[in-house]
């Protein structure tokens, strides 16, 4: 039988029993739909998060506690203010280019309003280092940090939530029960898909923040290089300075590229895992197809007998039923793909996570769904091919 004729025969059989064909392949439809949807969401999350890190600017170095093994347990930071200062002293214009950071969740209140948000203790140069603009007022002065002053910079949303239309500059707020004076409001960053928006951030001077949060260690040290070319030299300096003060496995310096790479890889793996879990439902769908195909073979025993009497060889019959299974799961794959892509659009519309339909997830879903048909069609197809024509014709 020619491939073209075989395909025609397969579709004829599928269309002859539309509802049943649809129900048979429903598992595949749902499986492919979940794979496409979950992978799109994972992929969208990856782009969003890596994009957010890239938004910090490409000339940034991150000094993180621990040996840099992201798979291991979280390590307690050994950085103190002394380490931040040592790094700043070792670099030209270090005061402007180095920032230590601590963070914690606190309740912030003013004018009878209260919000719970992330409060960062940061060095004076922080806004420049991580590339955040100040919309109104001014940033911290080195004296604010040295003097342990209770001053604060508000994210745009926090400012609106606490003060509505009032100008917050110079007004007082309470953070974790202490009074602070607002010195500036940060420029709007825009919506973020993950965690609280950066417009919810509240900054206080590093020393004040450490006292407020009752911590003695700095979580992260940021270093901004003037140019991309200067990154390596700055990194060596940072590593040398910290190497003299800390053990080798107590700190690691990353470039922004490396962080994006590591985070990207982790999210990629997560996406694969999501896809694989959804893929299991595809296999379950395949078992369903196999089951119904076996029923179909037994129902169509007389057809098989007839075809053999008319000259069909064992392999013609096997190929016919195999192709039917593949066409069935292939159609299910196309349908599931359509629904999955549609749902991905809906997710993009209604949630802050833009789902990203990727070519590889589409190719994988279609490849796997036809593969599932091939795999689970073999058993029924072989059974059909092996039927004895005499017995098959007598069947009722």
């Amino acid at each position: 039988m020619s491939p073209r004729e075989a395909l025609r025969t397969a579709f004829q059989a599928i269309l002859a029993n539309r509802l049943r064909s649809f129900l048979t392949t429903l598992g595949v439809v749902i499986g492919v739909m979940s794979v496409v949807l979950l992978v799109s969401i994972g992929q969208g999350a990856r782009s969003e998060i890596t994009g957010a890190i890239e938004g910090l600017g490409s000339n940034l170095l991150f000094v993180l506690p621990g040996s840099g093994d992201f798979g291991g347990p979280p390590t307690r930071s050994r950085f103190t203010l002394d380490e931040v200062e040592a790094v700043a002293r070792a670099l030209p214009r270090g005061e402007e280019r180095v920032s230590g950071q601590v963070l914690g969740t606190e309740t912030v209140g003013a004018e009878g309003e209260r919000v719970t948000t992330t409060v960062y203790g940061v060095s004076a140069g922080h806004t420049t280092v991580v590339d955040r603009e100040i919309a109104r007022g001014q940033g911290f002065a080195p004296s604010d940090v040295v003097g342990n002053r209770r001053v604060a910079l508000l994210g745009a949303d926090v400012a609106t939530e606490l003060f509505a239309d009032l100008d917050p500059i110079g007004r007082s707020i309470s953070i974790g029960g202490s009074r602070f004076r607002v010195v500036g409001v940060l420029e709007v960053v825009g919506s973020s898909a993950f965690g609280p928006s950066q417009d919810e951030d509240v900054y206080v001077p590093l020393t004040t923040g450490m006292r407020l949060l009752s911590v003695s260690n700095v979580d992260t040290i940021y270093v901004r290089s003037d140019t991309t070319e200067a990154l390596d030299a700055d990194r060596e300096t940072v590593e040398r300075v910290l190497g003299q003060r800390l053990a080798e496995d107590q700190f690691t310096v990353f470039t922004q590229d490396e962080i994006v790479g590591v985070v990207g890889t982790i999210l990629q793996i997560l996406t694969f895992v999501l896809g694989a879990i959804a893929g299991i439902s595809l296999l379950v769908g395949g078992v369903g197809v196999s089951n119904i195909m076996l029923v179909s073979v037994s129902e169509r025993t007389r057809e098989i007998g007839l075809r053999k009497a008319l000259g069909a060889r064992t392999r013609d019959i096997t190929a016919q039923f195999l192709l039917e299974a593949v066409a069935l799961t292939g159609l299910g794959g196309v349908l599931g793909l359509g629904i999955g892509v549609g749902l991905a659009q809906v997710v993009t519309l209604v949630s802050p996570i833009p789902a990203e339909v990727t070519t590889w997830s589409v190719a994988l879903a279609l490849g796997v769904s036809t593969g599932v048909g091939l795999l689970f069609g073999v058993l029924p197809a072989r059974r059909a091919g092996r039927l004895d024509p005499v017995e098959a014709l007598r069947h009722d």
Partner: protein
Amino acid sequence: MRGGGGAPGVPLLEAEAVERTYRMGGDVEVRALRGVSFRVDRGDYVAIVGTSGSGKSTLLNLIGALDRPDGGHVRYDGRDVREMSDTELAELRNVRIGFVFQSFHLLSRMTARDNVAMPLVYRTSSPKERRRRATEALEAVGLGDRVDHRPTELSGGQQQRVAIARALVTEPALILADEPTGNLDTRTGEEIMGLLEGIQADRGTALVVITHEPEIAGRAGRRIELRDGLVVADAVQIPTRSTPAAVAP
């Protein structure tokens, strides 16, 4: 291998001391055929008769190359069916034999034309050629205006005509009909027999009809009678036909 082919002198079909025994569970055996011999030549018209259980269907399966004998030989064009592989048997059925069954065996999801074209699907032929030949075969059985109908939209007699067209479309050397009128009323049955006989007469196709109806058996040029798995009579006879062989225009 095509319609009227085969070497001269060699019979189209030869059964020689054919035996077929069914083994049931345990030691029970049913000897359905116990040494059957006869031959069919090109253009013959043979009726095989016998009471129920005499072995007619078993014999049909063997001469239809759907089954192999346990003893003796079935030869097509001198070639022993027992020495042929399953694939060779499939080709033999496709090329040399046209089947007509009591219960028509049409696929209800296909049009009359697709049903008729089905045997052509298992040989190299273009869709266009299949279409043309199937249409011609349907015209030959008087259903030129029903090509796109499905079996459920046709009467029993029309369905059997479609089945005959399907047997005809490959231009076989032998048409094997198993109780072809069994599911039809007497008048329609006679029309169907007339149609088969017209094909046999006009195209020189050998016709073997299995029946238990004496009126049908009486129409053939030769009558083979089976009893308990043995041939008890094999004789040329003068056909008795109530209606002349009528092929639809």
